[in-house]
Protein backbone atom coordinates (compact mmCIF):
# COMPACT_ATOMS: atom_id res chain seq x y z
CA UNK A 1 0.00 0.00 0.00
CA UNK A 2 1.51 3.27 -1.07
CA UNK A 3 1.54 6.29 1.21
CA UNK A 4 -1.06 8.99 0.48
CA UNK A 5 0.60 12.35 -0.02
CA UNK A 6 -2.55 14.30 -0.82
CA UNK A 7 -6.02 13.53 0.47
CA UNK A 8 -8.84 15.84 -0.54
CA UNK A 9 -12.37 15.26 0.62
CA UNK A 10 -15.54 16.98 -0.60
CA UNK A 11 -13.67 20.06 -1.65
CA UNK A 12 -15.87 22.98 -2.73
CA UNK A 13 -14.96 26.48 -3.74
CA UNK A 14 -17.52 29.24 -4.12
CA UNK A 15 -16.64 32.75 -5.33
CA UNK A 16 -19.03 35.50 -4.33
CA UNK A 17 -22.36 34.85 -2.68
CA UNK A 18 -26.10 34.89 -3.32
CA UNK A 19 -27.31 35.06 -6.90
CA UNK A 20 -23.89 35.88 -8.32
CA UNK A 21 -22.12 33.01 -6.52
CA UNK A 22 -19.85 30.98 -8.79
CA UNK A 23 -19.35 27.36 -7.81
CA UNK A 24 -15.89 26.64 -9.13
CA UNK A 25 -15.54 23.30 -7.35
CA UNK A 26 -18.55 21.20 -6.41
CA UNK A 27 -17.34 18.50 -4.07
CA UNK A 28 -14.11 16.92 -5.20
CA UNK A 29 -12.52 13.95 -3.46
CA UNK A 30 -9.27 12.37 -4.56
CA UNK A 31 -5.99 11.04 -3.27
CA UNK A 32 -2.50 11.34 -4.67
CA UNK A 33 0.14 8.82 -3.69
CA UNK A 34 3.69 9.74 -3.00
CA UNK A 35 5.73 9.40 -6.16
CA UNK A 36 2.74 9.63 -8.47
CA UNK A 37 2.72 11.59 -11.76
CA UNK A 38 -0.78 12.98 -12.13
CA UNK A 39 -2.27 15.13 -14.85
CA UNK A 40 -5.39 17.25 -14.33
CA UNK A 41 -7.30 18.03 -17.50
CA UNK A 42 -10.43 19.89 -18.35
CA UNK A 43 -11.80 22.66 -20.53
CA UNK A 44 -11.51 26.25 -19.39
CA UNK A 45 -13.98 26.98 -16.63
CA UNK A 46 -13.88 23.39 -15.44
CA UNK A 47 -12.27 24.40 -12.17
CA UNK A 48 -8.82 22.96 -12.82
CA UNK A 49 -7.08 26.26 -12.07
CA UNK A 50 -9.05 26.63 -8.85
CA UNK A 51 -8.12 23.10 -7.83
CA UNK A 52 -4.49 23.79 -8.68
CA UNK A 53 -4.52 26.96 -6.55
CA UNK A 54 -5.95 25.07 -3.60
CA UNK A 55 -3.48 22.19 -4.04
CA UNK A 56 -0.72 24.80 -4.17
CA UNK A 57 -1.92 26.39 -0.92
CA UNK A 58 -2.38 29.73 -2.72
CA UNK A 59 -6.07 29.58 -1.87
CA UNK A 60 -8.28 27.92 0.72
CA UNK A 61 -11.34 25.78 -0.05
CA UNK A 62 -14.78 27.05 0.95
CA UNK A 63 -15.58 23.64 2.38
CA UNK A 64 -13.95 20.26 2.57
CA UNK A 65 -10.62 18.98 3.80
CA UNK A 66 -7.18 19.03 2.23
CA UNK A 67 -4.51 16.98 3.93
CA UNK A 68 -1.05 17.49 2.49
CA UNK A 69 1.75 15.24 3.72
CA UNK A 70 -0.20 14.43 6.88
CA UNK A 71 -1.07 18.07 7.67
CA UNK A 72 -4.56 19.53 7.26
CA UNK A 73 -3.87 22.74 5.38
CA UNK A 74 -7.44 23.70 4.47
CA UNK A 75 -7.90 26.12 7.36
CA UNK A 76 -4.41 27.54 7.86
CA UNK A 77 -3.68 31.27 8.17
CA UNK A 78 -2.00 33.17 5.35
CA UNK A 79 1.35 33.08 7.12
CA UNK A 80 1.15 29.32 7.74
CA UNK A 81 0.10 28.73 4.13
CA UNK A 82 3.14 30.71 2.96
CA UNK A 83 5.34 28.47 5.06
CA UNK A 84 3.69 25.31 3.68
CA UNK A 85 4.19 26.57 0.12
CA UNK A 86 7.81 27.26 0.88
CA UNK A 87 8.58 23.85 2.37
CA UNK A 88 6.30 21.44 0.54
CA UNK A 89 5.42 22.83 -2.87
CA UNK A 90 7.47 23.58 -5.95
CA UNK A 91 5.69 25.65 -8.57
CA UNK A 92 6.36 25.51 -12.30
CA UNK A 93 4.41 28.16 -14.20
CA UNK A 94 3.51 28.41 -17.85
CA UNK A 95 5.33 31.75 -18.14
CA UNK A 96 8.33 30.69 -15.97
CA UNK A 97 8.00 33.76 -13.68
CA UNK A 98 11.71 34.34 -13.29
CA UNK A 99 12.81 37.72 -11.91
CA UNK A 100 14.49 39.39 -14.90
CA UNK A 101 17.18 41.28 -12.99
CA UNK A 102 18.48 38.24 -11.11
CA UNK A 103 20.88 35.59 -12.42
CA UNK A 104 19.69 31.99 -12.82
CA UNK A 105 21.35 30.98 -9.55
CA UNK A 106 19.80 33.87 -7.66
CA UNK A 107 16.38 33.06 -9.06
CA UNK A 108 16.77 29.47 -7.92
CA UNK A 109 17.90 30.65 -4.48
CA UNK A 110 14.71 32.60 -3.80
CA UNK A 111 12.73 29.82 -2.04
CA UNK A 112 15.71 29.13 0.24
CA UNK A 113 15.79 32.78 1.31
CA UNK A 114 12.17 32.61 2.44
CA UNK A 115 12.76 29.42 4.43
CA UNK A 116 12.17 30.60 7.98
CA UNK A 117 12.19 27.12 9.50
CA UNK A 118 15.79 26.19 8.88
CA UNK A 119 17.48 29.22 7.36
CA UNK A 120 20.70 28.46 5.54
CA UNK A 121 23.66 30.81 5.27
CA UNK A 122 24.03 32.61 1.93
CA UNK A 123 26.87 30.39 0.77
CA UNK A 124 24.94 27.16 1.41
CA UNK A 125 21.91 28.66 -0.39
CA UNK A 126 24.05 29.44 -3.40
CA UNK A 127 25.61 25.99 -3.45
CA UNK A 128 22.23 24.31 -3.32
CA UNK A 129 20.98 26.56 -6.09
CA UNK A 130 23.95 25.63 -8.28
CA UNK A 131 23.38 21.93 -7.50
CA UNK A 132 19.72 22.27 -8.51
CA UNK A 133 20.75 23.98 -11.77
CA UNK A 134 23.21 21.17 -12.44
CA UNK A 135 20.47 18.60 -11.92
CA UNK A 136 18.44 20.23 -14.72
CA UNK A 137 21.50 20.44 -16.97
CA UNK A 138 22.20 24.16 -16.58
CA UNK A 139 25.34 23.97 -14.45
CA UNK A 140 27.08 26.26 -16.95
CA UNK A 141 24.37 28.92 -16.94
CA UNK A 142 24.33 29.93 -13.29
CA UNK A 143 25.30 33.56 -13.93
CA UNK A 144 23.07 34.12 -16.92
CA UNK A 145 20.05 36.32 -16.61
CA UNK A 146 16.70 35.06 -17.88
CA UNK A 147 16.88 37.21 -21.05
CA UNK A 148 20.15 35.48 -21.95
CA UNK A 149 18.47 32.06 -21.88
CA UNK A 150 16.13 30.30 -24.31
CA UNK A 151 12.52 29.57 -23.34
CA UNK A 152 13.34 25.93 -22.60
CA UNK A 153 16.32 26.92 -20.50
CA UNK A 154 14.23 29.45 -18.60
CA UNK A 155 11.66 26.79 -17.81
CA UNK A 156 14.45 24.50 -16.62
CA UNK A 157 15.67 27.27 -14.30
CA UNK A 158 12.10 27.49 -13.01
CA UNK A 159 12.08 23.72 -12.43
CA UNK A 160 15.38 23.98 -10.58
CA UNK A 161 13.76 26.68 -8.42
CA UNK A 162 10.84 24.33 -7.77
CA UNK A 163 13.23 21.58 -6.68
CA UNK A 164 15.66 23.53 -4.56
CA UNK A 165 13.69 23.31 -1.31
CA UNK A 166 13.17 19.53 -1.76
CA UNK A 167 9.38 19.91 -1.82
CA UNK A 168 6.86 17.11 -1.28
CA UNK A 169 5.16 17.87 -4.55
CA UNK A 170 5.81 19.69 -7.81
CA UNK A 171 2.85 21.57 -9.25
CA UNK A 172 3.25 22.32 -12.93
CA UNK A 173 0.69 24.58 -14.59
CA UNK A 174 0.86 24.13 -18.39
CA UNK A 175 4.66 23.81 -18.17
CA UNK A 176 5.09 23.59 -21.94
CA UNK A 177 2.42 26.11 -22.88
CA UNK A 178 4.91 28.73 -24.07
CA UNK A 179 7.45 26.38 -25.64
CA UNK A 180 8.12 24.98 -29.10
CA UNK A 181 7.95 21.24 -29.69
CA UNK A 182 11.60 20.49 -29.10
CA UNK A 183 11.82 22.50 -25.88
CA UNK A 184 8.56 20.91 -24.75
CA UNK A 185 10.07 17.47 -25.19
CA UNK A 186 13.10 18.47 -23.15
CA UNK A 187 10.86 19.67 -20.34
CA UNK A 188 8.74 16.51 -20.48
CA UNK A 189 11.91 14.41 -20.35
CA UNK A 190 13.05 16.37 -17.35
CA UNK A 191 9.73 15.83 -15.56
CA UNK A 192 9.95 12.10 -16.30
CA UNK A 193 13.47 12.07 -14.97
CA UNK A 194 12.36 13.76 -11.74
CA UNK A 195 9.46 11.36 -11.48
CA UNK A 196 11.79 8.42 -11.86
CA UNK A 197 13.87 9.85 -9.02
CA UNK A 198 10.75 9.69 -6.86
CA UNK A 199 9.21 13.14 -7.18
CA UNK A 200 5.46 13.57 -6.95
CA UNK A 201 4.22 15.67 -9.85
CA UNK A 202 0.79 17.18 -10.44
CA UNK A 203 0.47 18.81 -13.84
CA UNK A 204 -2.42 20.86 -15.17
CA UNK A 205 -2.81 20.83 -18.94
CA UNK A 206 -5.38 20.88 -21.66
CA UNK A 207 -3.16 19.04 -24.14
CA UNK A 208 -4.14 15.37 -24.28
CA UNK A 209 -0.70 14.50 -25.71
CA UNK A 210 0.98 15.94 -22.67
CA UNK A 211 -1.42 14.27 -20.27
CA UNK A 212 -0.52 10.92 -21.83
CA UNK A 213 2.87 11.18 -20.16
CA UNK A 214 1.31 11.03 -16.72
CA UNK A 215 0.55 7.77 -14.93
CA UNK A 216 -2.91 8.94 -14.10
CA UNK A 217 -5.26 11.53 -15.55
CA UNK A 218 -8.11 13.28 -13.75
CA UNK A 219 -10.64 14.99 -15.97
CA UNK A 220 -12.70 17.87 -14.57
CA UNK A 221 -15.85 19.42 -15.90
CA UNK A 222 -18.08 22.02 -14.20
CA UNK A 223 -16.22 21.66 -10.94
CA UNK A 224 -16.55 17.93 -10.67
CA UNK A 225 -14.36 14.95 -11.50
CA UNK A 226 -15.84 13.22 -14.53
CA UNK A 227 -13.08 10.65 -15.02
CA UNK A 228 -10.08 9.39 -13.06
CA UNK A 229 -8.12 6.79 -15.00
CA UNK A 230 -4.69 5.24 -15.03
CA UNK A 231 -2.70 5.35 -18.23
CA UNK A 232 -2.04 1.72 -19.16
CA UNK A 233 1.66 1.95 -19.82
CA UNK A 234 4.02 3.97 -17.76
CA UNK A 235 6.46 5.42 -20.19
CA UNK A 236 9.97 6.05 -19.11
CA UNK A 237 11.57 8.91 -20.95
CA UNK A 238 9.16 8.36 -23.78
CA UNK A 239 8.62 10.68 -26.65
CA UNK A 240 5.38 12.38 -27.61
Amino acid sequence: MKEQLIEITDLTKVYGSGDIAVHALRGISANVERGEFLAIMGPSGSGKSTLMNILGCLDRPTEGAYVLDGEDVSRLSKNKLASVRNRKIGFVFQSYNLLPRLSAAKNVMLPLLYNGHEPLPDKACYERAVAALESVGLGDRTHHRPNELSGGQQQRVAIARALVNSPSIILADEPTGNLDTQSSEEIIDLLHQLHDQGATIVMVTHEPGLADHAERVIFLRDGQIVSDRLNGVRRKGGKL
Partner: protein
Amino acid sequence: MSLWRTFKVAWEGLTLNKARSFLTTLGVIIGVGAVIVMMAVSAGAEAEIADQINALGANLVMVMPSFSRGGFGPGMGAGVGRPPGLTYDDIAAIAQNVTGINGVSAEQTTNQTVKAGSTTLEDVSIVGTTAGFPDVRDYRVAEGRFLTDEDNDRVNKVVVLGHDVAQELFGEQSAVGQSIKIASTKFTIVGVMEEKGVVGNTDYDGRVYIPLTVVFKKFTHARFGGENVRTIYVSAESKETMERVMSQVTTVLIRQHDVDPASPDFSLMTQDSIIDTAASTTEAFRDLLAWVAGVSLVVGGIGIMNIMLVSVTERTREIGLRQALGARPHDVRLQFLLEAVMLSLIGGLMGVLAGVGGSYAFNELGTMRTELVTESIPLAFGAAAVIGIFFGYYPATKAAQLDPIEALRRE
Protein backbone atom coordinates in the same frame (compact mmCIF):
# COMPACT_ATOMS: atom_id res chain seq x y z
CA MET B 1 13.15 36.13 5.72
CA SER B 2 15.74 37.76 7.89
CA LEU B 3 15.90 41.55 8.16
CA TRP B 4 19.30 41.69 6.49
CA ARG B 5 18.15 39.62 3.52
CA THR B 6 15.00 41.72 3.20
CA PHE B 7 17.22 44.78 3.31
CA LYS B 8 19.29 43.43 0.41
CA VAL B 9 16.16 42.64 -1.59
CA ALA B 10 14.84 46.14 -0.94
CA TRP B 11 18.16 47.64 -2.00
CA GLU B 12 18.04 45.65 -5.24
CA GLY B 13 14.57 47.08 -5.79
CA LEU B 14 15.86 50.62 -5.41
CA THR B 15 18.88 50.21 -7.65
CA LEU B 16 16.63 48.74 -10.34
CA ASN B 17 15.69 52.26 -11.37
CA LYS B 18 18.34 54.60 -10.05
CA ALA B 19 17.21 57.76 -11.81
CA ARG B 20 13.67 57.35 -10.56
CA SER B 21 14.84 56.57 -7.04
CA PHE B 22 16.96 59.73 -7.04
CA LEU B 23 14.15 61.90 -8.34
CA THR B 24 11.85 60.44 -5.71
CA THR B 25 14.25 61.40 -2.94
CA LEU B 26 14.65 64.92 -4.32
CA GLY B 27 11.65 66.14 -2.33
CA VAL B 28 13.17 64.85 0.88
CA ILE B 29 16.61 66.23 -0.04
CA ILE B 30 15.14 69.69 -0.57
CA GLY B 31 12.98 69.44 2.56
CA VAL B 32 15.81 68.36 4.86
CA GLY B 33 18.25 70.79 3.27
CA ALA B 34 15.76 73.63 3.62
CA VAL B 35 15.13 72.90 7.31
CA ILE B 36 18.86 73.02 8.05
CA VAL B 37 19.59 76.11 5.95
CA MET B 38 16.57 78.01 7.27
CA MET B 39 17.53 77.33 10.86
CA ALA B 40 21.15 78.31 10.14
CA VAL B 41 20.04 81.56 8.51
CA SER B 42 17.84 82.62 11.41
CA ALA B 43 20.47 81.61 13.96
CA GLY B 44 22.96 83.69 11.97
CA ALA B 45 20.62 86.68 11.95
CA GLU B 46 20.18 86.37 15.70
CA ALA B 47 23.93 86.22 16.30
CA GLU B 48 24.42 89.23 14.05
CA ILE B 49 21.94 91.29 16.05
CA ALA B 50 23.51 90.20 19.34
CA ASP B 51 26.96 91.18 18.06
CA GLN B 52 25.81 94.61 16.96
CA ILE B 53 24.15 95.31 20.27
CA ASN B 54 27.07 94.03 22.30
CA ALA B 55 29.37 96.19 20.17
CA LEU B 56 27.78 99.26 21.76
CA GLY B 57 29.75 98.65 24.93
CA ALA B 58 29.48 96.62 28.10
CA ASN B 59 26.68 96.73 30.70
CA LEU B 60 24.71 99.42 28.96
CA VAL B 61 21.35 100.73 30.06
CA MET B 62 19.54 102.48 27.22
CA VAL B 63 16.96 105.15 27.93
CA MET B 64 14.50 105.87 25.16
CA PRO B 65 11.54 108.19 24.92
CA SER B 66 8.24 106.42 25.06
CA PHE B 67 5.15 107.95 23.55
CA SER B 68 2.99 104.91 23.80
CA ARG B 69 1.56 105.72 27.23
CA GLY B 70 -0.65 108.64 28.15
CA GLY B 71 -2.28 108.82 24.75
CA PHE B 72 -1.86 111.38 21.98
CA GLY B 73 -1.94 115.14 22.19
CA PRO B 74 0.45 117.91 23.20
CA GLY B 75 2.92 116.87 25.86
CA MET B 76 2.09 113.22 25.43
CA GLY B 77 2.36 112.38 29.11
CA ALA B 78 5.18 114.81 29.77
CA GLY B 79 4.99 117.59 32.31
CA VAL B 80 3.29 120.79 31.27
CA GLY B 81 5.50 123.30 29.44
CA ARG B 82 8.17 120.71 28.69
CA PRO B 83 8.79 119.32 25.25
CA PRO B 84 8.30 115.56 25.01
CA GLY B 85 11.18 113.12 24.87
CA LEU B 86 14.67 113.18 26.29
CA THR B 87 16.87 116.24 26.34
CA TYR B 88 20.46 117.21 26.90
CA ASP B 89 19.54 118.24 30.47
CA ASP B 90 18.47 114.67 31.24
CA ILE B 91 22.00 113.48 30.48
CA ALA B 92 23.46 115.93 32.93
CA ALA B 93 20.87 115.00 35.57
CA ILE B 94 21.71 111.31 35.28
CA ALA B 95 25.45 111.97 35.34
CA GLN B 96 25.10 114.00 38.54
CA ASN B 97 22.60 111.92 40.47
CA VAL B 98 23.14 108.29 39.58
CA THR B 99 25.90 106.31 41.31
CA GLY B 100 27.69 103.20 40.21
CA ILE B 101 28.14 104.25 36.60
CA ASN B 102 31.12 104.64 34.30
CA GLY B 103 29.53 107.34 32.26
CA VAL B 104 26.48 108.72 30.52
CA SER B 105 26.29 109.71 26.93
CA ALA B 106 23.98 110.32 24.04
CA GLU B 107 24.54 110.34 20.33
CA GLN B 108 22.96 112.13 17.43
CA THR B 109 24.43 111.42 14.04
CA THR B 110 24.31 113.49 10.87
CA ASN B 111 26.23 113.07 7.64
CA GLN B 112 28.13 116.08 6.32
CA THR B 113 31.03 117.09 4.12
CA VAL B 114 34.32 117.65 5.95
CA LYS B 115 37.01 119.92 4.54
CA ALA B 116 40.59 120.66 5.65
CA GLY B 117 42.68 122.84 3.38
CA SER B 118 42.32 121.34 -0.08
CA THR B 119 41.17 117.93 1.10
CA THR B 120 37.44 117.24 1.08
CA LEU B 121 35.72 114.16 2.53
CA GLU B 122 32.14 113.57 1.46
CA ASP B 123 29.43 112.07 3.56
CA VAL B 124 31.28 111.71 6.87
CA SER B 125 29.36 110.58 9.95
CA ILE B 126 29.26 113.51 12.36
CA VAL B 127 28.43 112.23 15.83
CA GLY B 128 27.11 114.71 18.32
CA THR B 129 27.85 113.42 21.79
CA THR B 130 28.88 114.26 25.34
CA ALA B 131 31.88 113.98 27.61
CA GLY B 132 30.82 110.53 28.82
CA PHE B 133 31.17 108.92 25.38
CA PRO B 134 34.72 107.48 25.79
CA ASP B 135 33.71 105.82 29.08
CA VAL B 136 30.49 104.40 27.74
CA ARG B 137 32.10 102.99 24.60
CA ASP B 138 35.45 102.20 26.21
CA TYR B 139 37.11 104.18 23.43
CA ARG B 140 40.03 106.45 24.23
CA VAL B 141 41.63 109.60 22.87
CA ALA B 142 45.07 109.04 21.36
CA GLU B 143 46.10 112.68 21.15
CA GLY B 144 44.72 115.87 22.67
CA ARG B 145 41.47 115.60 24.63
CA PHE B 146 37.87 114.51 24.21
CA LEU B 147 34.83 116.81 24.34
CA THR B 148 34.03 118.20 27.77
CA ASP B 149 30.81 119.21 29.51
CA GLU B 150 31.90 122.79 29.02
CA ASP B 151 32.08 122.26 25.24
CA ASN B 152 28.46 121.14 25.30
CA ASP B 153 27.29 123.82 27.73
CA ARG B 154 28.88 126.58 25.70
CA VAL B 155 28.13 125.03 22.33
CA ASN B 156 31.84 125.20 21.45
CA LYS B 157 32.67 124.46 17.84
CA VAL B 158 35.33 121.88 18.60
CA VAL B 159 35.84 118.46 17.03
CA VAL B 160 37.59 115.16 17.84
CA LEU B 161 38.60 113.16 14.75
CA GLY B 162 38.43 109.43 14.25
CA HIS B 163 41.76 107.81 13.48
CA ASP B 164 41.20 107.32 9.73
CA VAL B 165 39.70 110.78 9.22
CA ALA B 166 42.77 112.37 10.85
CA GLN B 167 45.04 110.27 8.62
CA GLU B 168 43.22 111.22 5.47
CA LEU B 169 43.07 114.92 6.24
CA PHE B 170 46.46 115.51 7.82
CA GLY B 171 48.57 112.42 7.17
CA GLU B 172 51.52 112.22 9.56
CA GLN B 173 51.04 115.83 10.68
CA SER B 174 49.46 116.48 14.03
CA ALA B 175 45.83 117.44 13.61
CA VAL B 176 45.30 118.89 17.08
CA GLY B 177 45.02 122.67 17.03
CA GLN B 178 44.22 122.80 13.32
CA SER B 179 40.79 123.63 12.02
CA ILE B 180 38.36 121.96 9.63
CA LYS B 181 35.08 122.89 8.05
CA ILE B 182 32.04 120.71 8.59
CA ALA B 183 29.43 121.77 6.05
CA SER B 184 29.98 125.53 6.24
CA THR B 185 30.97 125.79 9.90
CA LYS B 186 34.55 126.05 11.07
CA PHE B 187 35.61 123.73 13.93
CA THR B 188 38.79 123.55 15.97
CA ILE B 189 40.33 120.11 16.35
CA VAL B 190 40.95 119.31 20.02
CA GLY B 191 41.75 115.60 19.82
CA VAL B 192 42.22 112.47 17.73
CA MET B 193 40.81 109.09 18.82
CA GLU B 194 42.71 105.83 19.03
CA GLU B 195 42.30 103.22 16.33
CA LYS B 196 39.29 100.97 17.01
CA GLY B 197 38.20 99.61 13.65
CA VAL B 198 34.76 98.36 12.68
CA VAL B 199 32.64 96.92 15.46
CA GLY B 200 29.24 95.52 14.59
CA ASN B 201 28.52 97.70 11.58
CA THR B 202 29.98 100.89 12.99
CA ASP B 203 33.25 102.20 11.53
CA TYR B 204 34.54 104.11 14.57
CA ASP B 205 37.65 105.37 12.82
CA GLY B 206 35.75 106.99 9.95
CA ARG B 207 33.66 109.28 12.16
CA VAL B 208 34.19 112.64 13.84
CA TYR B 209 32.83 113.72 17.21
CA ILE B 210 31.42 117.15 18.08
CA PRO B 211 29.35 118.41 21.04
CA LEU B 212 25.72 117.23 20.99
CA THR B 213 24.47 120.77 21.47
CA VAL B 214 26.30 121.86 18.32
CA VAL B 215 24.56 119.16 16.31
CA PHE B 216 21.21 120.39 17.60
CA LYS B 217 22.03 123.98 16.83
CA LYS B 218 23.74 123.63 13.47
CA PHE B 219 22.38 120.53 11.84
CA THR B 220 19.12 119.15 13.24
CA HIS B 221 17.35 121.94 15.10
CA ALA B 222 14.98 122.78 12.27
CA ARG B 223 13.59 119.27 12.09
CA PHE B 224 10.74 117.97 14.13
CA GLY B 225 12.05 116.86 17.49
CA GLY B 226 15.49 118.03 16.47
CA GLU B 227 16.47 118.88 20.02
CA ASN B 228 15.45 115.52 21.31
CA VAL B 229 17.94 112.86 22.19
CA ARG B 230 16.92 109.53 20.73
CA THR B 231 18.81 107.38 23.18
CA ILE B 232 20.76 108.01 26.35
CA TYR B 233 23.42 105.41 27.05
CA VAL B 234 24.26 104.77 30.69
CA SER B 235 27.22 102.52 31.32
CA ALA B 236 26.99 100.63 34.62
CA GLU B 237 30.17 99.70 36.46
CA SER B 238 29.30 96.02 36.42
CA LYS B 239 26.53 93.60 35.66
CA GLU B 240 25.65 93.49 39.36
CA THR B 241 25.03 97.24 39.62
CA MET B 242 22.74 97.36 36.58
CA GLU B 243 19.51 96.83 38.54
CA ARG B 244 20.39 99.59 40.96
CA VAL B 245 21.44 101.94 38.16
CA MET B 246 18.18 101.35 36.35
CA SER B 247 16.04 102.19 39.37
CA GLN B 248 18.07 105.32 40.04
CA VAL B 249 17.78 106.46 36.42
CA THR B 250 14.02 105.94 36.60
CA THR B 251 13.74 107.98 39.78
CA VAL B 252 15.87 110.81 38.38
CA LEU B 253 13.98 111.03 35.09
CA ILE B 254 10.54 110.90 36.74
CA ARG B 255 11.53 113.82 38.88
CA GLN B 256 13.18 115.62 35.96
CA HIS B 257 10.16 115.19 33.68
CA ASP B 258 7.60 115.54 36.46
CA VAL B 259 5.51 112.63 35.18
CA ASP B 260 3.29 110.03 36.80
CA PRO B 261 5.53 107.13 37.90
CA ALA B 262 2.86 104.73 36.67
CA SER B 263 3.16 105.98 33.10
CA PRO B 264 6.61 107.44 32.48
CA ASP B 265 7.40 109.05 29.12
CA PHE B 266 10.57 107.01 28.74
CA SER B 267 11.57 103.39 28.90
CA LEU B 268 14.72 101.57 29.93
CA MET B 269 16.30 98.75 28.07
CA THR B 270 19.38 96.67 28.56
CA GLN B 271 21.35 94.90 25.85
CA ASP B 272 20.04 91.61 27.17
CA SER B 273 16.44 92.75 26.90
CA ILE B 274 17.01 94.01 23.35
CA ILE B 275 18.71 90.77 22.39
CA ASP B 276 15.85 88.84 23.99
CA THR B 277 13.30 90.86 22.06
CA ALA B 278 15.21 90.39 18.85
CA ALA B 279 15.64 86.69 19.63
CA SER B 280 11.93 86.18 20.17
CA THR B 281 11.28 87.83 16.82
CA THR B 282 13.86 85.76 14.99
CA GLU B 283 12.66 82.65 16.81
CA ALA B 284 9.13 83.19 15.57
CA PHE B 285 10.62 83.74 12.14
CA ARG B 286 12.70 80.59 12.50
CA ASP B 287 9.69 78.55 13.52
CA LEU B 288 7.80 79.82 10.51
CA LEU B 289 10.67 78.92 8.17
CA ALA B 290 11.04 75.52 9.80
CA TRP B 291 7.35 74.83 9.27
CA VAL B 292 7.54 75.86 5.64
CA ALA B 293 10.55 73.60 5.19
CA GLY B 294 8.68 70.88 7.06
CA VAL B 295 5.83 71.16 4.60
CA SER B 296 8.23 70.49 1.75
CA LEU B 297 9.40 67.41 3.68
CA VAL B 298 5.82 66.19 3.82
CA VAL B 299 5.46 66.86 0.10
CA GLY B 300 8.62 64.79 -0.38
CA GLY B 301 7.00 62.02 1.64
CA ILE B 302 3.94 62.11 -0.57
CA GLY B 303 6.28 61.80 -3.56
CA ILE B 304 7.78 58.68 -2.02
CA MET B 305 4.34 57.22 -1.37
CA ASN B 306 3.35 57.97 -4.94
CA ILE B 307 6.37 56.22 -6.43
CA MET B 308 6.05 53.29 -4.04
CA LEU B 309 2.44 52.80 -5.14
CA VAL B 310 3.58 52.83 -8.77
CA SER B 311 6.34 50.39 -7.90
CA VAL B 312 3.92 48.00 -6.17
CA THR B 313 1.66 48.07 -9.21
CA GLU B 314 4.57 47.51 -11.60
CA ARG B 315 5.95 44.65 -9.56
CA THR B 316 2.67 42.92 -8.76
CA ARG B 317 3.80 39.78 -10.57
CA GLU B 318 7.06 39.71 -8.67
CA ILE B 319 5.14 40.06 -5.42
CA GLY B 320 2.85 37.20 -6.43
CA LEU B 321 5.85 35.01 -7.28
CA ARG B 322 7.57 35.77 -3.99
CA GLN B 323 4.35 34.90 -2.17
CA ALA B 324 4.09 31.62 -4.09
CA LEU B 325 7.66 30.78 -3.14
CA GLY B 326 6.91 31.30 0.52
CA ALA B 327 7.05 35.04 1.27
CA ARG B 328 4.62 35.84 4.07
CA PRO B 329 2.57 39.08 3.97
CA HIS B 330 4.94 40.32 6.63
CA ASP B 331 7.99 39.70 4.40
CA VAL B 332 6.43 41.61 1.51
CA ARG B 333 5.41 44.51 3.73
CA LEU B 334 8.88 44.75 5.21
CA GLN B 335 10.49 44.69 1.78
CA PHE B 336 8.50 47.66 0.52
CA LEU B 337 8.60 49.51 3.81
CA LEU B 338 12.38 49.22 3.82
CA GLU B 339 12.50 50.55 0.28
CA ALA B 340 10.53 53.62 1.32
CA VAL B 341 12.57 54.15 4.48
CA MET B 342 15.83 53.76 2.57
CA LEU B 343 14.66 56.26 -0.02
CA SER B 344 13.85 58.81 2.66
CA LEU B 345 16.99 58.12 4.68
CA ILE B 346 19.22 58.44 1.63
CA GLY B 347 17.30 61.61 0.81
CA GLY B 348 17.78 62.72 4.41
CA LEU B 349 21.50 62.07 4.24
CA MET B 350 21.90 63.97 0.98
CA GLY B 351 19.65 66.70 2.41
CA VAL B 352 21.93 67.04 5.44
CA LEU B 353 24.94 67.34 3.15
CA ALA B 354 23.12 69.89 0.99
CA GLY B 355 21.91 71.81 4.05
CA VAL B 356 25.29 71.93 5.77
CA GLY B 357 27.03 72.71 2.49
CA GLY B 358 24.47 75.39 1.66
CA SER B 359 24.77 77.06 5.06
CA TYR B 360 28.54 77.02 4.76
CA ALA B 361 28.44 78.42 1.22
CA PHE B 362 26.10 81.27 2.19
CA ASN B 363 28.48 82.22 4.97
CA GLU B 364 31.64 81.93 2.85
CA LEU B 365 30.23 83.78 -0.14
CA GLY B 366 29.10 86.55 2.20
CA THR B 367 25.51 86.30 1.00
CA MET B 368 24.33 86.18 4.58
CA ARG B 369 25.59 85.15 7.93
CA THR B 370 24.56 81.61 8.89
CA GLU B 371 25.20 79.57 11.99
CA LEU B 372 24.63 75.86 11.75
CA VAL B 373 22.17 74.72 14.42
CA THR B 374 23.50 71.31 15.44
CA GLU B 375 20.12 70.05 16.63
CA SER B 376 18.64 70.72 13.19
CA ILE B 377 20.60 67.79 11.70
CA PRO B 378 19.16 64.95 13.82
CA LEU B 379 15.82 66.76 13.75
CA ALA B 380 15.63 66.89 9.96
CA PHE B 381 17.12 63.41 9.55
CA GLY B 382 14.71 61.94 12.08
CA ALA B 383 11.79 63.68 10.37
CA ALA B 384 12.89 62.09 7.08
CA ALA B 385 12.93 58.62 8.70
CA VAL B 386 9.49 59.11 10.22
CA ILE B 387 8.18 60.32 6.88
CA GLY B 388 9.60 57.24 5.16
CA ILE B 389 7.83 54.93 7.58
CA PHE B 390 4.61 56.94 7.55
CA PHE B 391 4.30 57.30 3.79
CA GLY B 392 5.81 53.90 3.05
CA TYR B 393 3.37 52.01 5.23
CA TYR B 394 0.35 52.32 3.00
CA PRO B 395 2.02 51.11 -0.25
CA ALA B 396 3.79 48.33 1.69
CA THR B 397 0.53 47.17 3.23
CA LYS B 398 -1.10 47.26 -0.16
CA ALA B 399 1.66 45.02 -1.49
CA ALA B 400 1.36 42.65 1.47
CA GLN B 401 -2.39 42.30 1.00
CA LEU B 402 -2.15 41.30 -2.66
CA ASP B 403 -3.72 37.95 -3.41
CA PRO B 404 -0.95 35.74 -4.86
CA ILE B 405 -3.30 34.19 -7.45
CA GLU B 406 -4.43 37.59 -8.72
CA ALA B 407 -0.89 38.92 -8.59
CA LEU B 408 0.53 36.02 -10.62
CA ARG B 409 -2.16 36.42 -13.24
CA ARG B 410 -1.36 40.12 -13.74
CA GLU B 411 0.63 40.99 -16.83
